[in-house]
């Protein structure tokens, strides 16, 4: 955000945005802490990294392009099933699995993006919800391919780079998930700080006016939706590979709702929102679900109500508001 009164060319604005903030270095350095501090929780840490990547993919369409999706788990699930199924038939190399999963979910995302780009408001919510349930039902009934409600059997994931096996302690899993998350984060960061990213934000604010200044809304939405689907697919494939299990749970409505909650909790439309939200959500669930798993959703619900009522931009939005308030008072 440039200060009022100081003219800035779009070029300078974008360049200023791409610069790394010291807090960002601190954040990524902190992601290495689990190795030192919580070596027993590396599996959880890798789950968090995967969920954060999933939240990042939703942020791309929801936070930047303003597409409310209640069925994003469809892509996560397709990615997970793709990685699982190809490993069953001999393609066990994790990286190759990621590429294939990303390509397939990208294709599915591209195909559905033509539907997505046509709708708004309730119809859009319903279409995404319907697509999510449709994929869930498909996976449930295609028992011969997915194993249905029993889960996918016979997943055999090979060694990472032919050297590192996925161990019980989650060392490989966490390094792998974290590196993939970081690379995808860099890509998304670059994307959102490009003219394309600015155009997306314009579409979010007013999709009717953007075509008038030369940014075709529908085409942009199709592009970003395809990318988001591919990233969600990568996250799903990561989960399948690091846990060696794929069940119908990867396609549940609950998963779509959870990731939405995380993103909003952290702050949508800010790159780190989904990441922070995923960390808080997953750690809290790990800590509280042992006490009373049945009532976990009561607190999630309450949290959602409070965030909507009190913190419209999530935790990160609240913090940056606070920061700006303090700085404004000082000057």
């Amino acid at each position: 955000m440039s200060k009022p009164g100081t003219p800035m060319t779009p070029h300078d604005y974008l360049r200023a945005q791409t610069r790394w903030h010291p807090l960002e270095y601190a954040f990524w350095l902190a992601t290495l802490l689990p190795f030192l501090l919580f070596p027993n929780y590396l599996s959880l840490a890798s789950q968090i990294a995967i969920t954060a990547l999933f939240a990042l993919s939703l942020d791309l369409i929801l936070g930047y392009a303003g597409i409310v999706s209640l069925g994003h788990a469809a892509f996560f699930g397709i990615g997970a099933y793709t990685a699982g199924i190809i490993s069953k038939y001999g393609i066990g190399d994790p990286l190759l699995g990621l590429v294939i999963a990303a390509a397939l979910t990208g294709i599915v995302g591209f195909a559905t993006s033509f539907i997505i780009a046509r709708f708004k408001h309730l119809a859009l919510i319903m279409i995404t919800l319907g697509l999510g349930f449709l994929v869930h039902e498909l996976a449930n009934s295609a028992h011969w391919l997915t194993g249905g409600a029993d889960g996918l059997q016979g997943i055999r994931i090979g060694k990472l780079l032919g050297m590192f096996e996925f161990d019980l302690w989650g060392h490989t899993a966490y390094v792998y998930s974290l590196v993939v998350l970081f690379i995808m984060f860099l890509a998304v960061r670059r994307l959102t700080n490009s003219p394309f990213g600015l155009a997306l934000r314009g579409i979010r604010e007013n999709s009717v006016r953007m075509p008038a200044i030369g940014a075709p809304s529908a085409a942009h939405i199709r592009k970003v939706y395809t990318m988001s689907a591919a990233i969600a697919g990568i996250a799903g494939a990561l989960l399948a590979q690091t846990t060696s299990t794929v069940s119908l749970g990867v396609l549940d409505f609950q998963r779509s709702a959870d990731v939405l909650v995380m993103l909003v909790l952290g702050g949508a439309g800010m790159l780190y929102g989904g990441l922070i939200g995923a960390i808080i959500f997953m750690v809290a669930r790990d800590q509280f679900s042992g006490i009373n798993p049945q009532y976990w959703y009561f607190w999630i619900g309450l949290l959602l109500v409070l965030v909507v009522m009190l913190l419209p931009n999530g935790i990160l939005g609240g913090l940056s508001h606070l920061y700006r308030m303090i700085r404004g008072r000082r000057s």
Partner: protein
Amino acid sequence: MFGPIIGVLFDGFAYGMLLFLLSVGLSVTLGMMNFVNLAHCAFAMLGGYVTVTLVNRFGWPFLATLPMAFLAAALVSVVFERLLYRKLYRASDLDQVLLTIGLAFMSIATAAYIFGTVHQAAPTPSFLRGSVQYFGINFGVYRLFLVAVGLAVTLVLVLTLEYTRFGQQVRAAVDNQRMARGLGINVDATFAATFALGSGLAGLGGALAIEIVGLDPSFALIYLVYVLIVVSVGGLGSILGSFIAAVLIGISDIAGKYYVPEVGAFLIYLVMILLLMWRPAGLFGKR
């Protein structure tokens, strides 16, 4: 050979009536305020639990609990409307979705806390059980009762909307909220009344649904999907649209489960997506 077909059509119609009761309120309030209320089925669930409690704990007759289910859902909903919903009428879809899905989550956990996650049942009086035979086809008495209630509610709603002052205000507010305000209609009060009425009907639907589909805390999410399908297919703010969509969805769901059980609920989602692609505003929607 037509026996089973008519039986399936009848069961589907009765199921459709249930869906209509559950969804008509959401359709009208959505059409009026464009407020995406994903907690609608939580109010229906509340009605269901009121009936279960009154019948099983206090020994009320089933029929006498139905008005209470209506009233309880209507009262609670209007409290939420005044306290929370009102503040988000001009907010984005996302905020509305988040707030109301948060409320739905809370309602599910609360119901699980009070009543447990087991399936609840409320015994119906003996004259609503069993079935009668016409032309060699069995009709469930309870389903006939459902159809009668559904048609009666439709009739009352249509007459209210067409011939009363309140109905005119509602129609004006659905057609053009700003213009209605400009003409001196108190849209907020009208909306609150409509919201209470719609949630009350959902509560009634929830109470009537116990006999057909049972009641457990997941009701608020499972039937939400059906209700949203009915609303989006029927078109916002259209009672006729909701009625036809509810019957269509009810019949295709029952027929799908009867003739092609392996496809499951797949058919309904496909029908919805195709219908919305054909008419994004729903069958009878104006916007």
